[in-house]
């Protein structure tokens, strides 16, 4: 994936032999639950062998659940010379026009060993493969999904596998902590495809045996046989798209399953994935009454396992349902009714022993989805598949800057790109340290734990949470009004505040921008270089994909050429 491959063709070289980095100085796990002590290997160098010394555990998670394999991982030599990640960063700094892996001066050891910048090399990430196909369009759905007569599953599978491999290596992580198959309707894929992607993940990084692997399933493609197949493929958690337990509502939503099918699917799932089955429900449908919603909830409680996701219906532009409401054919649900529905659901689920660990997610007996939590904790994730989104540091490229990435939305275009260059990244935007903090805030406050002091400190070691929000200002006023709490644990919403979070966030962002703007030098350090990541400057170099690239404002640097050029013009 590095900048050199396009021009140099096959590169099997070793950028200077085995690298020995002393990561004892790494502050990655600052204040986190450090379970280290064991030297852990770092197994992603291509053709090289990196050993680590010192006590850094590399584990980003607050609660380490263990199970990580320890030892040396030997990177798989790639057919294309991806492996100059350790070299290119110092090379850029020295202003080389090209990353010349062969030059000793670019050897990272020669340049001072492990880059000392920021939080260090992020060790884990989560994987989000997307299956973009559906059998039918639902009336409310605005996702990137396609209904096609026939899917060339073998081709899609090969591309998913290949892109997963490319991007995981680019992420340069030690292990994948969870996988979530989304879509589309991933339960339409064959278990074989699911297995292939998981194998690829295990191969490219490391997929611990206990890692959460969730599959979204529609009741219409969740027969016990299929579900058993998915379990055999490695899936260990199921999220069933029930949406409603009312026949009329299901028709309004354009779902292809019946209430009975939904019930049967959930029961089958619970049998196969006991304690790890979730169901999705929608509320706030046009014409839905508070009573109807309360009845649905009751029915759902009788059916569900230990995890529920309750989503207020968002009428997205471009959907059939939204058009009907806009035309006046269906009523707009009144604001106050939606609030009543939401508060009713919270009360009913609390009484049934559920913890609302996020705005729309409820769990009991500790059945939280670690995958979803990782989004709200602003951890790294790699999106694979058409239209998938990702957030990670392309460490494998030598960058230390977190990027927002989007894959090409249309499956055919995406496949062509993956086939020609190993991935279909359509857009990559470097996230500035401030932007990372903004995301952390906006996402973290959605959870009941909020943004913890430790997590904040990891993104912003120089400017602690209290320095930003502790003084007089918006956060203090919101605390006094009872919407927010800031204490030793961190910053979080009160239950009342959570319901109106979207009114709190603009104020908090203002305060953050103000403080980080004046005293925020620390945050710059946290993110490494300036805002302009090398790759983000690349020209739109898509070759045959130029047409699809047109019209995007953000920098496109998906192709190797783009990356190459970006480096050439880098700082």
């Amino acid at each position, binding site marked *: 994936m590095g900048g050199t491959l396009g021009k140099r063709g096959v590169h099997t070289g070793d950028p200077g032999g085995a690298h020995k980095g002393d990561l004892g100085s790494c502050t990655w796990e600052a204040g986190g639950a450090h379970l280290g002590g064991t030297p852990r290997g770092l197994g992603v160098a291509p053709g090289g062998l990196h050993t680590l010394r010192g006590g850094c555990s590399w584990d980003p998670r607050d609660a380490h659940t263990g199970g990580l394999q320890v030892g040396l991982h030997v990177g798989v030599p790639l057919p294309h010379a991806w492996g100059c990640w350790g070299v290119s960063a110092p090379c850029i700094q020295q202003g080389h026009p090209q990353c010349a892996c062969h030059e000793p001066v670019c050897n990272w050891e020669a340049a001072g060993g492990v880059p000392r910048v920021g939080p260090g090399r992020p060790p884990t990430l989560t994987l989000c493969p997307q299956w973009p196909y559906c059998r039918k369009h639902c009336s409310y759905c605005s*996702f990137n999904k396609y209904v096609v007569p026939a899917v060339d599953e073998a081709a899609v599978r090969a591309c998913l596998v290949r892109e997963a491999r490319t991007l995981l290596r680019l992420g340069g992580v030690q292990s994948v902590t969870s996988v979530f198959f989304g879509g589309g309707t991933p339960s339409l894929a064959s278990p074989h495809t699911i297995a292939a992607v998981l194998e690829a993940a295990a191969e490219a990084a490391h997929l611990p045996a206990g890692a959460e692997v969730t599959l979204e399933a529609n009741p219409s493609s969740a027969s016990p046989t299929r579900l058993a197949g998915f379990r055999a493929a490695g899936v260990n958690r199921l999220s069933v798209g029930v949406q409603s337990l009312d026949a009329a509502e299901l028709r309004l939503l354009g779902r292809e399953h019946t209430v009975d099918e939904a019930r049967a699917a959930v029961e089958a799932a619970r049998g196969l994935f006991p304690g790890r089955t979730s169901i999705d429900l929608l509320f706030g449908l046009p014409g839905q009454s508070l009573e109807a919603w309360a009845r649905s909830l009751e029915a759902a409680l009788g059916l569900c396992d230990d995890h529920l996701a309750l989503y207020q*219906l968002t009428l997205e532009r471009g959907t059939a349902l939204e058009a009907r409401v806009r035309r006046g054919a269906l009523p707009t649900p009144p*604001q106050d009714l939606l609030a009543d529905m*939401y508060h009713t659901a919270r009360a009913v689920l609390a009484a049934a022993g559920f913890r609302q660990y996020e705005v*729309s997610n409820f769990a009991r007996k500790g059945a939280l989805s670690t995958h979803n939590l990782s989004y709200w904790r602003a951890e790294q994730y790699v999106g694979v598949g058409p239209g*998938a989104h990702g957030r990670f540091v392309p460490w494998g490229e030598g960058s230390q800057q977190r990027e927002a990435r989007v894959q090409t939305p249309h499956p055919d275009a995406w496949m062509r790109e993956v086939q020609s260059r190993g991935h279909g990244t359509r857009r990559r935007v470097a996230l500035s340290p401030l932007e990372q903090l903004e995301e952390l805030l906006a996402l973290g406050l*959605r959870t009941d734990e909020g943004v913890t002091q430790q997590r904040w400190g990891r993104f912003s070691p120089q400017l602690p949470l209290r320095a930003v929000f502790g003084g007089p200002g918006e956060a203090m006023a919101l605390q006094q009004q009872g919407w927010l709490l800031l204490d030793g644990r961190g910053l979080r919403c009160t239950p009342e505040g959570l319901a*109106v979070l979207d009114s709190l*966030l*603009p104020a908090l962002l203002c305060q953050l921008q103000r403080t980080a703007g004046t005293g925020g030098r620390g945050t710059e350090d946290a993110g490494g270089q300036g805002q302009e990541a090398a790759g983000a400057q690349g020209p739109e170099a898509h070759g045959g994909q130029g047409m699809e690239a047109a019209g995007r404002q953000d920098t496109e640097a998906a192709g190797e050429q783009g990356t190459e050029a970006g480096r050439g013009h880098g700082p």
Partner: protein
Amino acid sequence: MALGSRAASWWARLLSPGPGVVPRGPPAWLAVGLAACRRPYSSGGKEKIDMSTYPVESIRNFSIIAHVDHGKSTLADRLLEITGTIATTDRNKQVLDKLQVERERGITVKAQSASLFYNHKGVKYLLNLIDTPGHVDFNYEVSRSLSACQGVILVVDANEGIQAQTVANFYLAFEAQLAIIPVINKIDLKNADPERVEKQIEKLFDIPVNECIRISAKQGTNIEKVLEKVIEKIPPPSFNTTDPLKALVFDSTFDHYRGVIANIALFGGEIEKGHKIVSAHTKKRYEVNEVGILTPNEQPTDKLYAGQVGYLIAGMKEVTEAQIGDTLFMHKQPVEPLPGFKSAKPMVFAGMYPVDQTEYNNLKSALERLTLNDSSVTVHRDSSLALGAGWRLGFLGLLHMEVFNQRLEQEYNMSVILTAPTVPYKAILSSAKLIKEYGKAEITIINPAQFPDKLSVSEYLEPTVLGTIVTPQEYIGKIIVLCQDRRAVQKDMLYIDEHRVMLKYLFPLNEIVVDFYDALKSLSSGYASFDYEDAGYQAADLIKMDILLNGNPVEELATIIHCDKAYATGKFLCERLKDAIPRQLFEIAIQAAIGKKIIARETLKAYRKNVVAKCYGGDITRRMKLLKRQAEGKKLMRKIGNVEVPRDAFIHVLKRQPDK
């Protein structure tokens, strides 16, 4: 006030898009052999017309007056054609309605004049067509233009008949004791009923039926007859070349290269290059650089003589130096100034702000350039906490305001926020302390913040206008209700024929400045016409109304209104604000108050739930964009107590609703 647009006029197709632009090509009717387009001023090298060959006996000075869209410009075109005026001079004419706004609206804002040469019964005549602005907002300018004339052509549409503006224009001419030639236009139309219109003219204006000329300006029918009547019926000016110079300034324009070009009518004496002249109004002295006639572009001549009409360039730098109605005379030969001069008096005020404050300087320079050509707009710097830095502009009337705004947008590409118009109120002070402070007992109030308390005032005054409405009779009932609702007092009601009625009402000006014309047009399906003239001030029970958000007054929403209208206006403002202010974390009381008394209230409920339901991988980027935009917006919000009011909400409430 919008007077509606008419179908693209003849000129619209021919004329270039705006002033200062080199015209695209010659008029279609001159197409043969015309190749070059020259700038209007490049008339050098041409043989100058000897104006001394036109003694006063062979001069006729006249105007065409008409209701909007009755065919004034088309008739003017025909007159220019038939006299060969355009064909014998430069081709690149941008005569009459040359502004985009004029062409779109079918109105004349900036008058243009033209000298026509015409042979009749072996005599060479010089006919000066003095154009006038077509609306009473420019009443004063119309009256000055008319004072340079001895007669008018009154054009009435054979289909629509007499309309409100026809009446207003007739009386202006009548009071100036001008000869009036009634012309019934558009007789080619299917629904034309010239007989009915002739009867209306007889009934209303006391002009015998047989004096009306039936024409079709569009088809050129009977145009010669109009010219004959002009020569026969309109008397020549009775001025002497041997008298001292006395010249009326009846219009002026600003040229970036040559300074002010003043249109003048000579009431006595003669004028030529090198003469030293003085303005009676400013007392400033100038040396004449150039004189000439308008054909309709400037064509220099050696001299101008008494009774003639033309232009003068004399080193004036600003249009305020050549004010309409001013008298020019020869240095050291002062004359009695011509009567009727007065400075422009704004009747309607509105705040103007750039949509984006970074555009302030651009807007400022656009305003400066536009007012160069329109000295009747008054400009005062103003600033609003909500809308930022801007200006309070005074206009002659509503149409004037609209035209000005439209010219800013069209000619200077400026997008502005124009607040709802207000009128200048007056107060007679009773408090000795305040009288001393102001130095006078009667003060004019433009800004509600300056509204003096009732206790220190013996009387408040509001401006009034006399409105004329001409309507088919079936709408009378609705129109009377509308007028009463606007606090108007009926002064006259006359059937001008068996179907049409003319109503006269005395209106408080503030009752018609916002939406009266639209209301009238919509309830009469577009058939009623309206015009008004200044009618002085009258005592009025005025009060200042405050708008409160959770008990805190919003300065920029305070208004001065008549006490009869307080409840309705208060309710309206509160409702509009409720729609415009986003819900917040707490309940907001929106109230209208007079002093301490609350007269209207709306309640904006607090948000109970607004957190977005889904926020996963793909949603995050979109979500962050929205949040950041909201955070940016928050920085621009105006805080009234703890209530955040977005600028858009002020715009929504303060902005004039565009006329439809």
